[in-house]
């Protein structure tokens, strides 16, 4: 027990502060991915829901690709492929060597995956909104944007929240993949600690517990948010 406490202690001898630092990066990455994934997912959902067949098809292609590829492969393609692409673009002007930031690569890749799944959730929510309300909005002379802001969005949140909560928990877990492209997230800090201490079981168990507590805390928060958006709905 002494050993365990010593290994997990704060400071230069223990690994507690390193793990906490990794946890911070993990949460930051998930939080940074969320808004961009949500917006992209919503736009893709609007495209898929649109009456224009070309736009709908473009949306479906997006979903098919990023929902079907393994997250790890998407990450590698964004990281290495983005590296090559950016390098070639830079080479057009100067011949400096550029390196893609692994945080940004992780954010882009995870956001694409998140958006692909979120667009399905949003699409379901869009279709759950009563058509008559849209027609009523048109009859009142509201513009497309006004209808979106005043009629669709407030209800959309209610329908989409359970699905999005799920996706948030998936996103939190998926951030662990960036440890493979050398971003110092929780899992990579754990790997480093394991390499130095030869205590894999302890450290990976601790990492799992940390992931578990973050998802526990977020489910509590999400339940509260869900209750808040459903407050006008009687018992729900």
């Amino acid at each position: 027990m002494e050993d365990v406490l010593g290994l997990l202690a704060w400071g230069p001898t223990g690994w507690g502060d390193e793990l906490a630092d990794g946890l911070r990066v993990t949460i930051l990455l998930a939080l940074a991915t969320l808004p961009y994934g949500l917006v992209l997912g919503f736009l893709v959902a609007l495209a898929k829901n649109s009456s224009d067949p070309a736009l709908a098809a473009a949306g479906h292609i997006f979903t098919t690709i990023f929902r079907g590829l393994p997250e790890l492969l998407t990450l590698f393609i964004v990281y290495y492929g983005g590296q090559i692409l950016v390098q070639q673009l830079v080479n057009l002007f100067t011949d400096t060597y550029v390196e893609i930031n692994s945080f940004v690569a992780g954010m882009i890749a995870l956001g694409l995956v998140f958006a692909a799944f979120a667009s399905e959730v949003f699409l379901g929510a869009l279709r759950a909104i009563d058509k008559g309300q849209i027609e009523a909005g048109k009859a009142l002379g509201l513009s497309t944007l006004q209808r979106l802001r005043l009629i669709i969005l407030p209800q959309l949140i209610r329908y989409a929240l359970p699905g999005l909560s799920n996706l948030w928990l998936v996103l939190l877990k998926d951030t662990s993949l960036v440890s493979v492209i050398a971003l110092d997230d929780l899992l990579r800090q754990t790997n480093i600690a394991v390499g130095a201490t030869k205590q894999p079981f302890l450290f990976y168990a601790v990492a799992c517990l940390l992931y578990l507590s973050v998802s526990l805390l977020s489910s509590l928060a999400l339940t509260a948010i869900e209750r808040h958006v459903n407050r006008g709905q009687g018992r729900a």
Partner: protein
Amino acid sequence: MAMEKDRGTAPLAPPAWRPPPRQPGLRYAGILALGAWGIAGAGLLGYLIKGFDGAYFARYAPKLLDGLIVTLELVSISILLGAILAFPIALARISRHAVLWAPAFGYIYLFRGTPLLAQTFLVYYGAGQFRAELVDLGLWWFFREAFNCALLTFTLNTSAYQAEILRGAIQSVPRGQWEGARALGLHDGVTFFKIILPQAFIIALRPLGNEIILMIKGSAVASVITVFDLMGQTRLAFSRSFEFQVYIWAAVIYLSIVETLRRVWERLERWLTRHMRPRA
């Protein structure tokens, strides 16, 4: 007065039908978006053709196929074993006895709440730490192979997800089915296996298909602990040649498996529920 006169002479005609107003904005957005995909696709194809190297292809394509077989093995075995495990776990989870319910809940929560990659590390490297004990137990031969560790982790992981799917499905069969069976004098066991479970399987079909797809995608994680599945072979080929093409090949293979499975599963679902649709 004048109006009344007008109405008298010319009966009010219904407004002429007009086509709904076109939205040229949407039209352009659609062309633009689809065009962007077209250009991206053409660019990728051009890149693949321009960089195509016969010797390279001959060298690495068979390796990727080997990897594909490993991936399919890994996924199919763990899905099957996971299904067998999921059944008692789901039943325990439904049970009202805390002795059964609590551990099942904890098991499901633990495996669904932590990343598959962390679980894989825990089993693979954790087993290495207990090597002496595992040798004593005569289990070391199993944990020595990265493939087996991945298989074990994936099986445990998917059993938690499948148990939750099964639980949801069993509980969403309407209560009236139980009551009806009881009124007919059927035992609880007979009711469960012959009435509830078949209906639950049909409800579970769609999420189960999703779980298989998630497992195919998730199995790429095995490559991190040196299993040479499709992803592992791809990474190996890339690290030897720095030829980015191989990632595109892998992407195409993964996408075709997932899409094929999705379509086959949809067919299967339609076929299995054919008795529930009104006849044409």
